[in-house]
């Protein structure tokens, strides 16, 4: 064996060890970093609360749903013969699947909403794979809150979120397999989830440190409950483009009352409360990527 051959042999062995190391080192990276329900040192909020509610509209003609070719997997075609795209679900001009959340703001008294400790719900949020389609299409969870992922199909799927601020993971779930439980430790809006076996399957997960978020229903309505009175920047996000489309406005929430924030996609943002102004897009430390 000459010198050149030896060099290549050493390179091949080094590469083998790297691959083995990578294979052995893979771990459940999507699990909790901590199960703590509150920030160390931060006090929970106690006091009067209100709500933020509104309706999401779609202006103009929504794009027609496109039929999805499921011929690559007969089980998908059988379970959902009329499967079509669901990125823009508009009913009577109202838009579903818009993730609305408080981006930042101050509670009456001057404290930032992120300065309080917000407990993590113990109930898991459900994400089902049914008819080769994610249900729901858009969902929100708090940091470290469990997401229970089920497979109701007669075929296997793989769940592959691509976060920017949390560890990426990719896991196969066979038909009939028990639910997979995962969570994300850091706030992130919004994490795309896809199935690499069925590339049309997409979902989006909003991970928030506070409980102040909701997803619009088919009638376009949403409601964020339990909000301390104060002034907030509310953001509405919908899928589209590389990172989604967002609209935002400032909303005042009175004690035991409701602040209203309607959004419109398709053309311009509509604010019902015309006295509200758009705040600078400053990220709270708690939401900082």
């Amino acid at each position, binding site marked *: 064996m000459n010198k050149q051959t030896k060099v290549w042999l050493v390179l091949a062995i080094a590469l083998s060890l790297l691959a083995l190391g990578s294979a052995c080192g893979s771990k459940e990276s999507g699990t909790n970093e901590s199960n703590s329900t509150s920030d160390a040192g931060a006090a929970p909020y106690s006091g009067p609360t209100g709500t933020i509610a509104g309706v999401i509209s779609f202006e103009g003609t929504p794009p027609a749903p*496109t039929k999805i070719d499921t011929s690559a997997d007969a089980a998908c075609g059988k379970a959902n013969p009329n499967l079509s795209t669901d990125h823009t679900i508009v009913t009577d001009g109202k838009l579903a699947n818009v993730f609305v959340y408080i981006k930042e703001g101050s509670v009456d008294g001057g404290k930032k909403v992120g300065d309080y400790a917000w407990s993590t719900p113990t109930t898991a949020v459900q994400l089902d794979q049914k008819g080769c389609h994610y249900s729901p299409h858009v969902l929100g969870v708090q940091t470290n809150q469990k997401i229970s992922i089920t497979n109701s199909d007669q075929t*296997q799927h793989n769940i592959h979120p691509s976060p920017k601020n949390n560890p990426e993971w990719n896991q196969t779930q066979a038909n009939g397999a028990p639910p997979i439980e995962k969570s994300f430790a850091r706030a992130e809006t919004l994490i795309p989830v896809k199935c690499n076996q069925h590339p*049309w399957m997409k979902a989006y997960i909003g991970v928030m440190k506070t409980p102040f978020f909701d997803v619009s229903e088919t009638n376009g309505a949403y409601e964020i409950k339990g909000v301390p009175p104060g002034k907030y920047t509310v953001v509405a996000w919908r899928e589209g483009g590389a990172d989604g489309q967002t609209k935002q406005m400032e909303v005042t929430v009175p004690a035991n009352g409701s602040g209203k924030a309607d959004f419109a996609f398709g053309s311009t943002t509509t604010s019902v409360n015309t006295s509200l102004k758009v705040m600078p897009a400053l990220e709270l430390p708690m939401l900082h990527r």
Partner: protein
Amino acid sequence: MSKGLNRFAILVACATFFLIIAGALVTSNDAGLATPDWPLSNGSFLPPMVGNMFYEHGHRMIATTVGLLTIGLAIYIRVKETRMWIWRLGLFALMAVIAQGLLGALTVKMMLPLGVSAAHATLAQLFFCTTVGIAVFTSKSWIEARTLPEETGSSPLRHMCTFALAMIFIQLILGATLRHSAKWDQPLPVQMILAHIVGAAGVTIALGATALSVLRRHKGETFLTRPATIALVLLVVQLFLGVAAYLTRLGSPNDPQPLHPMVGITVAHVACGALVFATTIVLTLRTYRVLPASEAAMEMAARPQES
């Protein structure tokens, strides 16, 4: 010379070309992470070949076959071939295919990082080039080739071919990086597109000038003119495929899934790129075989080492 060995080498090169197509199908269909494990696919040697598992596991099965064929080729060369440098080339091919398999494993386990995925795609072309080289070196036409008269042109064809080959290889790296820098549902990065277009212009000029020079200087010498003509035709086809691939890829982020026109055309573009590379390798090797080196180079070779 063993006719059987040459035929087997051609078989390995053809299988490798088929493997490149299978790999391109994986990328275009976004099937690279259809299974998170390796070497098993979803914990099985024979998983259900549904959805994108067809492409990902199919690619693994073809890759395994090519790996076994390469082991066979190395053994065949050891048994039949008297030229030791071809045995070393066979060993290199074997190590390249092992490294390629491990890069494939890394790209899955590390969730398709751009550097690893692009390296996997580039090494595929290098491995293909090696198998084509072995097929050329073991061919009857190579062994029986006679030296042609000295070149009459201003630029030695050997140098022109080598330059064109280097340009194509750089363009293959750029293409691999471009393809792996964004999924089908994301827009391609503009800088990478521009770099690939500039690379295409460079290849067109370098390979076009080389092939036309071969046709002009060595009219009637099919040993050289045949690969030059094929390279020229493939280059034109490749340019059209490149434009078509770009146009179909522009609209794909708005598609509900990777659609057939985009998949078919981008895969054809990758495959044609591999053929341009292979044909230029054949042309380059043949120029080195039958055309004398330039006088300056021969003088340098003849001069005793001064160190």
